[in-house]
């Protein structure tokens, strides 16, 4: 076993420390007890990381689409020459705004930094946006509006020290499990600590809630305006703080009073019980230490930024910010959403928390980079960017480490746009994704465990992601590819990096560059990390920014503890937030509200988690969750399939009624895509409306219709090797341990199942070891294929979704040899009852087995006649009587 390597988990924004050890039989993953984010804990996704480090599906070599339309392996030189040349031609012909980058919160800070530098400083466009736009752009915008800078003022310890934690639009239990466990532990230690969950869904997170407010989707601003008005009405105000450190309180209060001045009006707007709402307001009013943590339920809205500011307003009014155990807290979704923000990975930022719209900021950055140009206006935000590709304004896009054909709203439009796009470059670790299907150039990137750099978690903690595996094939770091293109454009000096430590150092120097009260003061300051050599960088322990230099220690470690904000007036701003309903209202055609989100054990578009058998067991299939009464009204039944349609697209998913959903709401998980299911991209259904300030899409509110999806048959197939599925009406692929599971459904009648099954599995040999069962008149068919004594595949089909459990069958795939009991149970889907095993047959006429006979002898049958009376054995042809006599003679009386 190799030496342990300390690194950071690549999933949510919690940023847990992970210790990886490479052993002969796989990779051992454990939580890093020394990491402050998790202190050794890991969630199930993190624990299963080892299972995702498999070669399956990896993109190993650069590929270029040839004249015949297929992607062909090529050399890095050829691929990069092609990319640099093609981009250059488009820029020269159509200007820098005709090209764009769409990057990802999965990238490391160093990758992000080089991308941003290349695009903004050398291409001269701000057309670089990231999938973080889909995740926490509203939080960023809210922070900037209120604080003058994208600063998260709360740490995980504050969550534990709070007396009230309000979780808004956050299924923390599933999406930030370790953070949730920290809250659970804190509440166990201090039972007086209160938890309020504000979420239309009764998620797993509500388990620890003292109060759950299932508000009507999209009404958060009413709720927090109401809170602001309530606090003001009841004198829960910190007048000194408001007076000295904020501006705009009067206007914000006026809007709150006018729109949410009475608890009853708010209760009605939010469709919450008045007494529950009052209880929440009172609890908030009387609790000094309160953290309001929010996530996608707040951000992913056409009023996302206002939702964030309506929350921040309440903390500003009460002065509950900048002190232990309190503050507004954006829980980010991705491992490095925060790091990307720090280096300006969004089209609306420059770098190091400097802005595009301020000439002084632009000058500072351009001077630092010594770059030929700098854009003067923001670039296209994610949704706009793909619109611009669709209408031809943007002619080339480089997509890095993300899967927009799945994850963007109105995702079918993304497909259409990419199909038209002149040049689509995709750098990824996986060869076949819904997005790589549209690539002209594929560049193999390093995956987690191979790449090397830093990430920043939700509490501004910078941690190293370290490599512990060699690069497979010709995979390279993302920053390297970008730097190589920069060099090909003649900027060798600017992109002469030999490792991530040099990039990080440059980034750290930029955060400190001109960061004085006289020039452009920013809270983000990594001066203390400047000048690290490779060894120091490698040894870097997790650290929260700011990290001031020895002498320049002007920034307190707790943001706003000094009452200083980063607006021009150095004061926090109250932002008036007139509430707005979601843009698309429900109507008769689309009467329900579609909400989307994560499930516990999957991540984004499953390119990683989809590889793990362990993670596939929690929720195996795409589903649509809705209230049982809505299911009844829609005519759909739990366990069957349903069309889920909006004006933008539709999908097919399994119906469930978990009891989590209120009336008029449906939930569909975001993860499934064309690699894992025939028809399950929820992105295609989501309306493309965005928040006017942040540009973040309204993923949590699309009018939707649910209808039965009629099929003739349901089935499942477990196979040791993947099986092509294209022709089937509906399918989902689930990764198993040494097998692949497919859930199937078909609209076409199948006349000869035996032939169809052999055809599907490619079993041409008539002498193959093949077992089958058919109940033709009801349409039930089952078959199993055995090769060298091991199960190779099994198929179960029924007209109803009443198929047996897959659990026992799944276990057979790890067996080197099926025993007789396995084989007997194969087409039942379970082993025979051990008690029912009567042993080898003695009396053939009545099928009486040896065990049964011996049992009866023990039970007092000491003659052949007595046995015959009890079991009927020997009473027909009588040929077993000698054996019965022998058994009686040899069976001793029980002691």
């Amino acid at each position: 076993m190799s030496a342990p390597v300390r690194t950071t988990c690549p999933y949510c924004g919690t940023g847990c420390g992970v210790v990886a050890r490479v052993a002969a039989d796989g990779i051992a993953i454990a939580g890093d007890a020394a990491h402050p984010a998790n202190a050794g804990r890991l969630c199930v996704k993190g624990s299963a990381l080892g299972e995702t480090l498999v070669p399956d599906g990896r993109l190993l070599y650069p590929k270029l689409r040839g004249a015949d339309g297929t992607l062909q392996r090529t050399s890095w030189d050829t691929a990069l020459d092609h990319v640099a040349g093609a981009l250059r031609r488009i820029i020269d012909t159509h200007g820098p705004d005709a090209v764009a980058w769409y990057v990802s919160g999965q990238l490391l800070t160093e990758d992000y930094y080089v991308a941003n530098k290349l695009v903004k400083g050398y291409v001269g466009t701000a057309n670089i946006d990231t999938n973080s736009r889909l995740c926490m752009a509203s939080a960023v915008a809210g922070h900037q509006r209120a604080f003058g800078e994208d600063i998260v003022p709360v740490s995980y310890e504050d969550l534990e020290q709070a007396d009230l934690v309000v979780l808004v639009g956050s299924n923390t239990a599933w999406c930030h499990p370790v953070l949730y466990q920290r809250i659970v532990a804190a509440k166990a230690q201090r039972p007086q600590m209160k938890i309020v969950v504000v979420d239309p869904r009764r998620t797993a997170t509500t388990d620890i809630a003292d109060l759950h407010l299932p508000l009507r989707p999209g009404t958060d601003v009413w709720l927090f305006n109401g809170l602001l008005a309530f606090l003001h009405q009841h004198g829960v105000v910190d007048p000194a703080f408001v007076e000295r450190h904020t501006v705009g309180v009067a206007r914000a209060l006026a809007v709150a009073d006018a729109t949410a001045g009475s608890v009853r009006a708010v209760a009605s707007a939010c469709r919450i019980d008045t007494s529950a709402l009052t209880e929440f307001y009172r609890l908030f009013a009387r609790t000094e230490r309160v953290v309001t943590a929010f996530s996608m339920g707040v951000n992913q809205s056409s009023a996302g930024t206002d939702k964030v500011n309506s929350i921040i307003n309440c903390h500003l009014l009460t002065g509950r910010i900048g002190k232990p155990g309190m503050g507004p807290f954006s829980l980010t979704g991705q491992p490095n959403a925060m790091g990307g923000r720090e280096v300006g990975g969004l089209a609306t930022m420059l770098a190091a928390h400097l802005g595009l719209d301020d000439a002084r900021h632009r000058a500072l950055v351009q001077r630092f980079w010594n770059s030929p140009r700098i854009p003067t206006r923001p670039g296209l935000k994610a949704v706009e960017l793909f619109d611009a590709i669709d209408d031809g304004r943007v002619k080339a896009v480089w997509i890095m480490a993300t899967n927009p054909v799945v994850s963007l709203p109105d995702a079918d439009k993304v497909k259409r746009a990419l199909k038209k796009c002149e040049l689509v470059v995709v750098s990824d670790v996986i060869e076949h994704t819904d997005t790589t299907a549209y690539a002209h150039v594929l560049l193999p990137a390093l995956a987690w465990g191979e790449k090397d750099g830093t990430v920043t978690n939700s509490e501004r903690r910078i941690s190293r992601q370290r490599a512990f595996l060699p690069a497979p094939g010709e995979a390279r770091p993302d920053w390297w590819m970008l730097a190589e293109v920069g060099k090909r454009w003649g900027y060798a000096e600017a992109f002469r990096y030999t490792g991530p430590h040099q990039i990080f150092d440059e980034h750290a120097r930029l955060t400190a560059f001109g960061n004085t009260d006289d020039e452009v003061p920013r809270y983000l300051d990594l001066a203390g990390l400047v000048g690290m050599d490779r060894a120091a960088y490698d040894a870097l322990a997790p650290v929260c920014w700011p990290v001031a230099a020895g002498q320049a220690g002007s920034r307190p470690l707790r943001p706003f503890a000094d009452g200083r904000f980063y607006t021009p007036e150095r004061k926090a701003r109250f932002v008036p937030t007139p509430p707005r309903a979601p843009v698309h209202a429900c109507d008769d055609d689309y009467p329900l509200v579609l909400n989307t989100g994560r499930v516990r054990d999957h991540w984004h578009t499953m390119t990683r988690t989809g590889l793990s058998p362990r993670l596939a067991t929690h929720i195996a299939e795409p589903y649509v969750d809705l209230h049982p009464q809505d299911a009844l009204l829609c005519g759909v039944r739990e366990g069957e399939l349903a069309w889920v349609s909006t004006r933008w697209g539709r999908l097919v998913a399994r119906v469930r009624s978990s009891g989590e959903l209120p009336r008029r709401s449906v939930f569909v998980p975001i993860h499934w895509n064309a690699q894992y299911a025939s028809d399950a991209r929820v992105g295609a259904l989501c309306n493309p409306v965005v928040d006017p300030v942040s540009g973040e899409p309204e993923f949590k509110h699309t009018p939707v219709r649910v209808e039965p999806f009629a099929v003739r048959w349901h089935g499942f197939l477990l196979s040791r090797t993947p099986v092509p599925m294209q022709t089937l009406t509906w399918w989902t692929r689930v990764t198993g341990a040494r097998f692949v599971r497919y859930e199937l459904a078909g609209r076409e009648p199948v006349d000869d199942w035996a032939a169809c099954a052999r055809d599907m599995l490619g079993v041409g040999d008539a002498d193959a070891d093949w077992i089958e069962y058919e109940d033709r008149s009801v349409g039930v068919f089952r078959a199993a294929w055995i090769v060298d004594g091991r199960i190779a595949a099994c198929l179960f089909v029924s007209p109803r979704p009443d198929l047996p459990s897959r659990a026992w069958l799944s276990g057979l795939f790890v067996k080197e040899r099926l025993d007789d009991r396995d084989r007997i149970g194969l087409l039942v889907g379970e082993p025979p009852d051990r008690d029912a095993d009567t042993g080898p047959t003695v009396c053939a006429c009545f099928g009486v087995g040896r065990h049964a006979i011996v049992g009866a002898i023990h039970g007092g049958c000491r003659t052949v006649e007595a046995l015959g009376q009890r079991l009927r054995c020997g009473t027909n042809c009588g040929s077993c009587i000698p054996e019965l006599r022998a058994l009686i003679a040899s069976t001793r009386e029980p002691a």
Partner: protein
Amino acid sequence: MTTAIPARALPGPMREHLTGVDRRMGEAASARPRQRLVVVGNGMAGMRTVEELLKLDASVYDITVFGAEPHGNYNRILLSPLLAGEKRLDDIMLHPHAWYAANGITLHAGDPIVAIDRTRRIVISRSGRKAAYDRLLLATGSRPFVIPVPGADLPGVVAFRAIEDVEAMLTAARTRRKAVVIGGGLLGLEAAHGLKRRGMDVTVVHVMDRLMERQLDAPAAALLREALERRGIRVLLKADTAAILGRDRVAGLRFKDGREIEADLVVMAVGIRPNVELARQAGLYCERAIVVDDTLQTLSDPRIYAVGECVQHRKATFGLVAPIWEQARVCAAHLAGYGHRRFVQTATATQLKVSGIDVFSAGEFGGGDGTEDLVFRDARRGTYKRLVLKDGCLVGAVLYGDVGDGAWYFELMRRRADVSRLRSRLVFGRAFCADAP
């Protein structure tokens, strides 16, 4: 007397009680002079009836048994394993001579009855022995059917019915090589298996297009054929024998299509014919066999009963052991004077007693209107199962290779149990239907 209710329909304790009543009545009867019961036929049906009778009341009759064969009563079903060498003669003897003596029964073995004088109530044997009866039980069984073709009477042509036939075959097996079995039914296949085990070169010729067509559907019959061929038994189907060839002794067979094969031994196993000549001579009403009522009494003479393969009950004749055991039970009850049982025909199941080849068949396995099939195949294991359902009940079953659940299926069929709830598991057997009815 309360015995209008069939006793076996009563719950256990009540049955005990009734039996007690019966016994006391038996004691009362024993005060009367013993009557004479003569049994014609020392085979399984007759002796089983005697056995049942002795169990009920040994004091009613003086019993005399006449048998054509020189042996005591033996288990004819086990002639196949006897031929195959899987059982010895001792193993198949049900009642040796000593048993008759011990039970006070007079046995005249090897001396068949040739005439019945119903007026004088006596029977006359081939040796001229006469025996008077108060009750007469006919259990004359059946004889093998010999197809009427030229050469059928040649030496070397045998049936498969009695110990003598087995001895003839064993002799042939020691000295001759080529055996042909005419008839691909249960008995023919058992004979073929036995002869193969005895080292002969065996061919089964069958007039139909599949083996055991009365018990098996086509897939099961095909599996059976493959299994037999794997054991080196040749199978000729659609082979209709036109003549048995040979001058002093059998030398071969010719079929109607002109094909010929060689043979040193020909075993005829194409069916049986009930032995009814004696009954006809005595003027008893016979159709295909001796017609009896539900008490096994002949229609013509209330003193005369009949059981076994020589019997016709309603339209049916009998060749399998299960209904004959039931006849014996019913008949014995009536002979004992209890009169509380009635013979009811029930479905029968068939099993092939060829070691290593397990075949089970029962009921309406052929399917038809309104029936539904559940079919299981495991070719590698040589397992085939077909269950036939009608109106939620199991009405037929063909099992090949794995017959362990045959008896259970048969029981479900007999009880007409509603199996709809078990439908998805039924074919996989009782072990998967733990909460089965």
